[in-house]
């Protein structure tokens, strides 16, 4: 079965420093992978997605992620954190059936300190 594991439940960084949110996936095929962000009292928003094209994917707000098949990882990075980046981040995978169903990780809370 397909699944994702977010390795940190909580990450704290200072404003202006790099962000790294880690995600490993489990899949017997080449999956589609996503990162979604959820700000308090707001809906989930797609940050970026990987669908078997370029392995380095650029998303909105300066975020990017690299698909590494050998490491089964899809880590999310940003060179410089902004206060507005504080939110919950979800790594997501689609199952082999490709019906559109999304399988979410447990989430990582990103705290940005001034």
């Amino acid at each position: 079965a397909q699944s994702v594991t977010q390795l940190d439940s909580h990450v704290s960084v200072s404003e202006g420093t790099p962000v790294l949110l880690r995600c490993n996936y489990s899949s017997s095929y080449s999956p589609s992978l996503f990162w979604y962000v959820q700000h308090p009292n707001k809906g989930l928003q797609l940050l970026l997605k990987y669908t078997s094209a370029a392995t380095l994917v650029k998303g909105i707000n300066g975020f990017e992620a690299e698909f590494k098949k050998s490491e089964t990882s899809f880590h999310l990075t940003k060179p410089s954190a902004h206060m507005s980046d504080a939110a919950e981040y979800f790594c997501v995978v689609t199952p082999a059936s490709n019906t559109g169903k999304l399988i979410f990780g447990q989430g990582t809370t990103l705290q940005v300190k001034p």
Partner: protein
Amino acid sequence: EAGVAQSPRYKIIEKRQSVAFWCNPISGHATLYWYQQILGQGPKLLIQFQNNGVVDDSQLPKDRFSAERLKGVDSTLKIQPAKLEDSAVYLCASSLSPGPADTQYFGPGTRLTVL
């Protein structure tokens, strides 16, 4: 472009009562999803519609949950009777078509508290 609309935003009920949630997807989106997000967890798919037909309801507790999408546009999700463990945020999402190529857009959710 208007986003996915959901109502109500908040609902508090007693256990064993019934409750219904409403979702209006983005215009033209054929695929509609209902997810359940329990506090501290990622969302879990309950049911997926393609137009007015069900594609996947494998994780819907059918003894108490039901959903419909009449005319392939709006959708309602009902719980009857509610249990304490149903306390969660219920998220509706829509996309042009199923599959990872089309982005799923999420509504703000309905926060349900069962006392």
